[in-house]
């Protein structure tokens, strides 16, 4: 069993092997546990798509929502282990989405990482009101983000595609 402190060896480094395709991923699925389900709540379509690409390259299974109401629906319908939540959304705030989902009991097994391009003290304090959640200011270094996720899920295997 992996030590919780040994985060560097629990997950493989991010892959840049572009030969990886869905067929490869499907083949490796049979040999490894299911990939980590991640909800990406980001209203900027292009940014969300690039984040999705990065997370897939890391071996996670991302699902993207651009609006708070869609994220709420997704959280109701399926279980995510991790949710990356942009605070500024067109229809609501990321805080409200998470608060609503918590009230419904949909986030019992979900870690939350809030992020925002306007990281004021108030926002950081607000994020702290959600137990166990993290706050990351934008722009963030993807390697740092991966490091955070590795700390949150030290024993989580991922697809080595």
């Amino acid at each position: 069993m992996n030590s919780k402190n040994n985060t560097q060896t629990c997950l493989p480094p991010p892959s840049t092997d572009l030969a990886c395709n869905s067929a490869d991923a499907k083949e490796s699925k049979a040999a490894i546990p299911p990939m980590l389900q991640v909800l990406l709540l980001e209203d900027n379509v292009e940014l969300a798509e690039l984040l999705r690409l990065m997370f897939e390259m890391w071996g996670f299974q991302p699902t993207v929502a651009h609006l708070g109401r869609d994220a709420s629906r997704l959280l109701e319908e399926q279980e995510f282990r991790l949710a990356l939540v942009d605070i500024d959304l067109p229809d609501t705030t990321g805080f409200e989405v998470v608060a609503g989902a918590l009230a419904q009991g949909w986030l019992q097994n979900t870690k939350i990482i809030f992020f925002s391009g306007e990281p004021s003290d108030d926002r950081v304090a607000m994020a702290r009101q959600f137990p166990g959640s993290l706050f990351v200011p934008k722009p963030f270094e993807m390697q740092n983000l991966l490091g955070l996720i590795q700390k949150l899920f030290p024993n989580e295997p991922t697809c080595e595609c």
Partner: protein
Amino acid sequence: MTTSFSRDYFPTTHWSVINNAGNSQSLLAESALNELCFRYWEPLYVFARHGGTAHANAEDLVQSFFLDFLEENYLQGLDSKNGRFRAFLLECFKNHSRNEWKRAGRQKRGGGADHLPLDWATADEKFQSLMAAETPEKMYDRAWAVTLLEQVLELLGEEMQAKGKGELFEELKPSLMVDRADFSYGDAANRLKLSEEATRQAAKRLREYYQKLLRQEILKTCDPAEVEQEIQFLLNAFSD
């Protein structure tokens, strides 16, 4: 003009092929690089516009730049120090712009010469619609990222069309940009005369293929070892 813009052949990584070619450049690589330039001209237009160049002058600048790029050997002496294709293209354009201003008193290259079929109206719409950035360079980066994603969607559509799946693509295209919002798999299934589950699976495969094409497209503009950095760069392009 002799350059072909065929998409039938691509070396794995144009940039690394060119870098490795040294003085004996690969014609295929050069042709592919020219095509990349042709596909990524819009960010240059956005750069020029954001830098204060008027619409018509920006058109002329980009037009004359491409005529120079395609007719002259811009790749001469190119090596790995030139960095990424994206940065290389911008530096070439800046140099070209400086030269054009110097000879501003003379007839502009783009004025009486053949014109490339570039969609200026769309480029200007893109300039107007992009979230304002602090610098022309940042606008260029942002436009680059948006253009990259648009190009991938276009490529995907072309490939699906070639496979006789154009209708399926058009029906499922909205699902690529949203996972749930405003997209009904049930309605799409009815129109496609498929079951909802089959439609969901088709959408999932389409997304997987889109992601694969996106990775490939990024790979064309940087070395394999730099892909993650390139994605990081593209992500940062959307942050102020």
